[in-house]
């Protein structure tokens, strides 16, 4: 209004002259930040950056502390999203065209095979890194002081990661897809094992929940076009949406729960300045230490209670780290994808099962358990394992030594001990089952109830529970129990998965190596 004395045309001419700087300025308001204030406001004012804190503790930036697992998982998801979008350009979800579309992606699309490999491997790598991220969280004692909720969100993200991978596995509609779908559908139907046992036992008839789940999943009683449509919907819309929402909450909570945990002692650089954090007391969800919108937005910010001197501006320090991890993840995925092709078998054939009909590798640990009892292996035990994981922060509430790997020497010892004991227990159980068989082999007439109730999987779980309790009793610390439990979980998952993937051949017979498998 101040230049109202100018004519409209003159104003227009002036605006036209400065259009370049005003256009650029509208995007980058503060220009390139040169002061700490500018760096801070850049972070706060940018939509994409403002989820970060303006300042970051230097210990958070130490690569040896988090190992970047969570960030790598997130970037893998980003890569999978983008590559998945590209795959959708050529894919079409029909039982008659899906297989050909995937073949075309492999054969004639420019970089198609690479794109498909990137999608496949980034998705599957997510499973590994999400699990390692979880293990890191437990080992560094990072599930406390308000982070309990976020831990549960994390478990939800783990499940979503599994299901996303699984639904993606179904889409090429090859033999792998088809028979994995059959197996998964029947695992969904496995509660029938239980309902069948109790049916007619006390004069009651239980509804066949398992069967109903299976039919809803497949849109029929056996896999077909309806199933593919449903799985496709899940894979490209519902699950990605869900994972985005939960991931948003996950990140939001990290912010609200005071950033990443970190060792309190500042030993970075030359100075050996160790600043102890103030003593904290209170309930499980500390709600004091709030600023900003005060009581409206509850939570803690990283810079309040502790050493402001040991923080640096997030711009550029944190972002350099994030971009570096992204480039690392991308480079690793592309390099791996260059060498290893995503598998594609024959066109789905409902007459001839793959032998062995294996689920994708990340479920082969479960399939090993499923080979004892479909219900316990497919639903009971994983359900219990997840429940156990969810329970960790609620059963261990020792709010000491947050952010320190293994807490102390004893923790390290317990981790190693659990690793050895767990390995021996799992391998021992497997060796026993492989050589001796189980109830069905000894007493072919045995009632299914006995197998559901007592099978190697259940015994293993029981052993883990008892051993963990014993650790708690011995060390007089629930924290040690948590370390022990997560180690058992990791060991069980890895060894069972290895067994199911490599050591089980046609007819689920034990072989030392796939090269020993008989020719079909």
């Amino acid at each position, binding site marked *: 209004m101040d230049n109202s004395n100018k004519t409209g045309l003159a104003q227009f001419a002036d605006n036209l002259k400065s259009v370049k700087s005003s256009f650029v300025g509208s995007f980058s308001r503060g220009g390139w930040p040169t002061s700490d204030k500018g760096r801070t406001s850049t972070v706060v004012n940018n939509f994409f950056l403002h989820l970060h804190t303006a300042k970051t503790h230097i210990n958070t930036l130490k690569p040896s502390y988090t190992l970047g697992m969570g960030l790598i998982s997130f970037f893998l998801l980003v890569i999978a999203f*983008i590559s998945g979008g590209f795959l959708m*350009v050529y894919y079409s979800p029909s039982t008659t065209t899906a297989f050909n579309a995937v073949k075309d992606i492999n054969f004639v*699309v420019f970089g198609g095979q690479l794109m498909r490999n990137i999608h496949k491997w980034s998705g599957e790598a997510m499973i590994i890194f999400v699990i390692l991220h979880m293990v890191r969280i437990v080992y560094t004692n990072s599930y406390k002081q308000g982070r309990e909720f976020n831990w549960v969100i994390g478990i939800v993200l783990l499940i979503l990661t599994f299901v996303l991978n699984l639904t993606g596995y179904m889409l090429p509609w090859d033999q792998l897809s088809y028979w994995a779908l059959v197996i998964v559908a029947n695992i969904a139907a496995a509660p029938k094992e239980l309902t069948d046992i109790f049916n007619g036992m006390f004069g009651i008839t239980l509804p066949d929940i398992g069967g109903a789940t299976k039919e809803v999943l497949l849109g029929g009683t056996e896999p077909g076009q309806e199933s593919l449509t449903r799985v496709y919907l899940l894979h490209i819309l519902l699950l990605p949406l869900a994972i985005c929402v939960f991931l948003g909450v996950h990140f939001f909570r990290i912010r609200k729960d005071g950033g990443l945990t970190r060792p309190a002692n500042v030993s970075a*650089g030359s100075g050996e300045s160790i600043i102890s954090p103030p003593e904290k007391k209170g309930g499980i969800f500390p709600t004091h230490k709030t600023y900003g919108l005060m009581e409206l937005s509850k939570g803690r910010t990283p810079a309040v209670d502790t050493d402001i001197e040991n923080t*640096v501006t997030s711009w550029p320090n944190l972002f350099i780290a994030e*971009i570096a991890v992204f*480039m690392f993840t*991308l*480079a690793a995925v592309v390099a791996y994808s260059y060498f290893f092709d995503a598998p594609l078998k024959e066109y789905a054939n409902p007459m001839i099962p793959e032998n062995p009909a294996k689920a994708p590798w990340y479920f082969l640990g479960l399939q090993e358990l499923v080979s004892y009892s479909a219900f316990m292996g497919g639903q009971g035990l994983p359900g219990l394992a997840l429940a156990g994981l969810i329970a960790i922060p609620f059963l261990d509430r020792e709010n000491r030594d947050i952010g320190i790997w293994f807490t102390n020497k004893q923790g390290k010892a317990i981790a190693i001990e659990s690793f050895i004991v767990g390995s021996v227990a799992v391998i021992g159980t497997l060796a026993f089952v492989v050589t001796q068989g189980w109830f069905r082999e000894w007493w072919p007439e045995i009632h299914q109830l006995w197998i559901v109730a007592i099978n190697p999987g259940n015994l293993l779980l029981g052993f883990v529970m008892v051993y963990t309790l014993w650790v708690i009793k011995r060390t007089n610390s629930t924290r040690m129990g948590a370390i022990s439990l997560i180690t058992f979980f990791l060991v069980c998952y890895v060894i069972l998965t290895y067994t199911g993937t490599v050591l089980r051949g046609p007819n689920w017979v034990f072989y030392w190596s796939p090269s020993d498998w008989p020719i079909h």
Partner: protein
Amino acid sequence: MSEETRDKDGVSRRDFLGLAAFGTAILGVVSSVAGSLRYIKANVYFEESKKFKVGTVENFPIGSVKKLDDKNVFIFSEEAGLFAISAICTHLGCIVSPVDFGFQCPCHGSQFNHIGNVIGGPAPRALEWFEISQEIDGSLAIDTAKTVSQGTKYLFA
């Protein structure tokens, strides 16, 4: 940690590392994006051959006009020879229909005369003429990938 390097003048070792790192990172991302864009362009099209057989000369008695509906081609037979005119309007690709003055496009009202020249409406060019050739077995083939100049008529034995 970086206070001292930040304040230095000129290109310090860290600045060089930073420049190199960001430079290559941007290059890497840009080439990934470029590759991905190339990925979108399909290498093969799922379309039938542009060249197709239409039968022998006897199928086209002099004075007749035949429209091949699935190929969108008019085949005219005259004393001077055979010629094939595209039925695809040069404006925005609708299919023209034969009328008494030539061809009329239903979408935006383009009008063409008997040899395909624009006589009305928004069409920028005349309708295309296609090559007709005779195969070894005597049958005629039209190749819609090969246009010929207006007025090219083919006489076959």
